[in-house]
């Protein structure tokens, strides 16, 4: 892998050069609420450097909370259908954590492997991921349990690791190499070395190998009820999750002109599976939470060979009841 170094004092120059080159740069920004969220910025001054994890993941760059599938207009000739795929700009996501970046591997596999998704493809092609290793973690972080770590390169185009005065840069993909070319003079060639001492320590809470085996027979575990009774049935976990992909399709406008949208949805909502007849295949919250967790740890492994939880801890931090996914996985696979 190609390694480069950059002085930490030169990071703002690199960052602003990407903006000058015409890219939309999405970065962590501290909001009035005290929480940090990804949003498009105009300069490095706006970027937060002190955060363990952003409130929501970076998935919205490739899977926005609302995506216009097409707009339509009726006239005497019939109906005209158009979409805006051609307007998607070159985008850089700056400062996502390695767990989030690795989620893009899953998203890509999910959206493209079978029945490839036009909108995801278009956005993914234009997106460069510049991740930053984690120097800090909290009690909700559990990346090491799902076989990642605070310095994983999986999914990123570039991974930055702060090492004192200097930043160690791993150029993982061609896209990553192209991104540093925008400000080539700021970088010096480097050599591969251990990042260990600069990374947060995240203790592993379970063995993924054991969980993968035990979850096969976990469907009927009585523990699902204990794990789920506190679940309010909101979408806070799913919307914040870097790998949750469920969506709704909704039309807005009139029958003469309007648009068809795809909007984030969540399997935890009671209406998610409800038939028009009133019949509901998943009648209670225990069944719904089981579906969400089994999808992450069992179904996505069976369907795509990937555990679709990256241990970012957002579902734990965002849950109004503070339900803990890894505690639940531990209890149902006991």
């Amino acid at each position: 892998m190609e390694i480069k170094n950059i002085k930490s004092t030169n990071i703002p120059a690199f960052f602003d050069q990407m903006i000058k080159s015409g890219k939309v740069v999405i970065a962590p920004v501290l909001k009035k609420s005290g929480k940090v969220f990804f949003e498009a910025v105009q300069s490095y001054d706006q970027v937060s450097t002190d955060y363990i994890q952003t409130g929501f993941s970076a998935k919205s760059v490739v899977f926005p909370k609302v995506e216009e599938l097409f707009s339509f207009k009726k006239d005497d000739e019939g109906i005209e259908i158009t979409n805006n795929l051609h307007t998607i700009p070159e985008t850089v996501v700056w400062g996502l954590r390695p767990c989030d970046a690795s989620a893009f591997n899953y998203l890509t596999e999910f959206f493209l492997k079978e029945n490839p998704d036009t909108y995801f493809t278009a956005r993914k092609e234009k997106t460069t991921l510049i991740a930053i290793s984690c120097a800090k973690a909290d009690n909700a972080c559990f990346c090491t349990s799902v076989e990642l770590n605070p310095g994983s390169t999986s999914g990123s185009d570039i991974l930055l690791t702060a090492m004192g005065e200097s930043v160690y840069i791993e150029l993982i993909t061609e896209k990553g190499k192209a991104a540093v070319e925008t400000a080539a003079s700021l970088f010096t060639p480097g050599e591969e070395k251990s990042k260990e001492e600069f990374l947060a320590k995240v203790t592993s809470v379970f063995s993924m190998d054991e969980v993968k085996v035990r979850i096969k027979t976990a469907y009927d575990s009585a523990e699902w009820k204990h794990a789920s009774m506190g679940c309010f049935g909101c979408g806070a976990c799913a919307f914040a999750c870097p790998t949750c992909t469920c969506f709704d399709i909704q039309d807005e406008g009139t029958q003469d002109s309007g648009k068809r949208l795809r909007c984030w949805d969540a399997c935890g909502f009671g209406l998610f599976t409800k038939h028009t007849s009133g019949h509901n295949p998943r009648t209670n919250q225990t069944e719904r939470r089981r579906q969400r967790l089994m999808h992450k740890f069992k179904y996505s492994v069976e369907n795509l060979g990937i555990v679709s939880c990256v241990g970012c801890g957002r579902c734990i931090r965002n849950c109004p009841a503070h339900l803990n996914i890894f505690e639940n996985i531990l209890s149902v696979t006991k």
Partner: protein
Amino acid sequence: MEPKNQYIPYKMRIANIIEEAPLVQTYRLEFVDEKDAAQFSFKAGQFAEYGVFGEGESTFCIASSPTREGYLECTFRSSGRVTKALANCELNDIIGLRGPFGNTFPIEEWYGKNIVFITGGIGLPPLRCLIWNLLDQREKFGDITIYYGARTVNDLVYKEELEEWKNRSDVNLFLTVDPGGETPDWKGLVGFVPTILEQNPPKSENSVAIIAGPPILIKMGMPILGKNGFENNNIYTTLENRMKCGVGKCGHCTVGKTYVCKDGPVFTYDEVLNMPPEY
């Protein structure tokens, strides 16, 4: 060639409207664009997303047989926002159609076998496609038996076709209505479909059964067939969970790891038994 954008619908013209039963209609649809018509093909068992622009999409099977070319038919009950908007459409209106989606009935594997259909209410439309598909190549199959019932006489769909099947010597039709749903001149059976099935069991030898309808009919009917000697892999059903995308992405129709829309909607009883009961 770029893969097709699965969310852009074909434009379809409503070429005929048949009132089947209270709130139930059949639309015959023709492609507005001949190029779409030329490249479109489907097989029995598949479904589509039918959309009214500005209102949304609704999921139903394709109710006409692939052996009848040049058009598609769908039969739906007006109950939600989209189906109500669809019901308000008029002849020659343009609606959207995406599909065909999902897997198909393995008709070729059934050559030479007896075929049993069990269905209720508007569970008949998904099987009507298959029934006509088989009847249009009648010589390739053994006995064909149909158990069909509805809440009331008025709720039976495809009344003319039921009459035609009743009069055909190569079709056995058990036509029933729920107790209390009969009219004074009703000449068919009275009783719930599972009851009629238990009282008049089909022979299981060299037979395949296909069951479709509300989840309760599927959940009750499959074990009855099992008791009558049908092997689980000779019992087929078509599941109808809530769906949005039709292509295995939106997550609404999942039953465990299974996406009804792309892994189904056609499943054998064996496959159903291996799923969580979330349908």
